[in-house]
């Protein structure tokens, strides 16, 4: 290991004096057991929030509902207000110049622009 790396103590030591169980004992090398962590979705499912009284605040029911206002439609390329919608690429656009641009975009870019607002075609 290089001297400057050692000096900066960049690398976390494997043995920690203050720990009761060391990492290498807890997660032995090459063993996937105990390394699986539930994702947030699974955690929420396991919590069984539906069995709780509805007035009790939980991680799920404190989420904000959708907006009461109609969503602002903005041009996907420029961010201007977008009165138009291109049915072929499904992109919103502000004016003819932007339209020219979106029609010259490759499909890859169109999908990336759509992905920005979570509207891209996802194949499953």
């Amino acid at each position, binding site marked *: 290991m290089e001297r400057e790396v050692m000096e900066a103590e960049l690398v976390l030591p494997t043995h920690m004096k203050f720990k009761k169980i060391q990492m290498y004992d807890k997660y032995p090398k090459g063993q996937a057991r105990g390394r699986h962590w539930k994702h947030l979705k699974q*955690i929420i499912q396991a919590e069984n929030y539906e069995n709780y009284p509805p007035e009790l605040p939980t991680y799920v029911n404190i989420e904000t509902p959708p907006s009461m206002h109609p969503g*602002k439609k903005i041009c996907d390329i420029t*961010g201007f207000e977008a009165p138009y919608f291109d049915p072929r690429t499904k992109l919103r656009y502000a004016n003819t110049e932007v339209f020219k641009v979106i029609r010259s975009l490759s499909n890859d870019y169109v999908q990336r622009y759509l992905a920005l607002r979570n509207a891209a075609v996802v194949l499953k």
Partner: protein
Amino acid sequence: MPFISQIERQSDYSSFHPSRPIVIDNGASYFRLGWAGETDPRVIFRNIVQRPRHKITGETVTVVGDHNPALLKYFDCTRSGPRSAFESNVVYQFEIMEYILDFGFDRLGADQSQIDHPILITECACNPVQSRGKMAELLFESYGVPSVAFGVDAAFSYKYNQKLGICNDTGLAISSGFTTSHVIPFINGEPVYEACCRTNVGGYHVTDYLKQLISLKYPHHISKLTWEKVEELKMEHCYIAADYASEVQLFQRGDKEAEEKTRCWQLPWTPSPAEEPPSEEEIARKAAVKEKQSQRLREMAEAKRSSKINELENELKGLEFLLEELKDIEDDEIVSFLASRGYTSKREVESAFAKVSQSLRKAKGEQVPSEEKVDVSAVEKYYLIDIPDDELSAEQLKEKRRQVFLKSTTEARQRAKQKRLDEELEKEKEKKLEEQKRLENPERYLEQLRAKYKELSEKLEQRKRLKTNGNHANGNNNVSGGVGRGERLNAAQRERMRLLTTAAFDRGKGEDTFGQRDEDWQLYKLMSRDNDDDDDDKPDQDEAELAHISSRLQEIDPTFFRGSESGASASETPRFRPLTKEDFQIILGVERFRCPEVLFNPNFIGIDQSGLDEMVGVSLRRLPTWGQGLEDKMTSSILVTGGSCLYPGMAERLEAGIRMIRPCGTPIKILRATDPIMDAWRGASAYAAAIEFPQQTFSRMDYYEKGEDWLRRYKFRYTI
């Protein structure tokens, strides 16, 4: 002091009494660790873990937090990027969390066999019990912590500012963090979680949106757009527009004001060495070389010519001598004499003589005697032509046929020549006429010529397009880049395909009448493949005309530039252009306020939830009804905290937004936290330093006795 890591190892760990709590603000972006009662955390670093491989030894190591990027050059980071223990704002990956805690305690200077201090650690509002339990398990079992308390960062921030007298004990906290934003109401200094709300939008989304937008706009500079750099750009340039619609209109109009608001990031750029025009010496040297070469070529040609002349002269002399000799020889001996020299008759010798002398004259550059001279002898040459066939012998007949053929070809040649001459004369005349026209009214003439040129070139272009590819004419309808078979064929081929398909499938409708009319059979001619390139072979009159006009225009119009050449080359192959400073600039215009706007309009990034201003309304509606007075009390003490609240214009925008959803005359007071980033830790530190703090903790004894599930009922009191 946002986003500056503090990772020096502390040396005074052993000087703290075991009852002194350690306070941890475990935020999704930054991890802050310090001692209760102090004003600032001791250790701050980004809450990420990297597991790169050392390039030389090949071993996988763990690197926590952000370090000097220069040091990472010894590691291969391509396999794994930075990883976080968080999903949204919930800790779920406790292996990573353990690495982070290891690093944090190590830098705090922990050197005993366990962490013998109570711990206050922050979590999100309404943290799932599973996550809280796992955190407790980790702290108790791996570190031997005596007791743990869990609190919400936004609440600590509110309490801290309440203590400083900035906000009242009843009010709202708007906290916008890295991955989520919360609005939490407070009544008498206690958070009311029943009425709080969360939108899953935060600083991460703003930075990510900005990063995506710039990399889509500048695909060439993608390598320069690292997360850290974009984060820096965001913090430096982004602001919140008072009104998005009017702000964007400013940019759409391209006003001067918009120009002033546009920021530009100049990427490192070194101008490519400009090509210097060759010096005069160089030009002279090149010209000299060229001249020398041409001189040599000329000399060679001259030598060749003179040798040829020499040769011809010799031959001529030989023939002359032969003819002289022939004069002296008797007639009956001539044949045998000539045969010995390789000739058959005297005539042949004579013709050879004439030929050689003619080519000699040609070689010497003299005028070749005109063909009329030959014509004089035409009468003798074709002496047999006028004699009727029956008067001639078989041999003579043969000769006559030859003569007839020769005569007709020479005549045809002459006729063609005459025609050429006539045409030339005609052209000359036309030219003269045109010249006259030009002289009469040069401008009008030029205009006419230009118009004609344009018309013709357009016509040709159109035809070319139709012929080569149909899809240009259809208006470029294949955005996806996929080209179907129909679009690959040219017009003629497509027509052929159409004919073939109609012929193949045109059945059933009544009687088959094909072939009753003669025209039907023309179909096969159209279908045949030879038909395809018919018009390619045809000499194109329009093209010739166009060439003529363009050459004429070039002659008389100095400004004329061949449109077809320039236009075609510009559209088809963009000419190489040296890169300029502007190509290495990243312009931030609308992006400056478009990206933070996602906090107010999460639907910009496809999240169907309300923005910060509406969240206040949602939160107030969720409050248990205690009357109008309470709501007014709340809106007159709105504290804004969290890293994503640092944008300029935040308070104004929030006030405007909240005013819209509240009844007229509502008192609204937006208060900014003293330090939106550090206040949560400071509040927690002050809280943990209080004497009553131990009553709020969950001890190791409780953990072993009551188990994780007890944590479900764990309720933290902020007013003690």
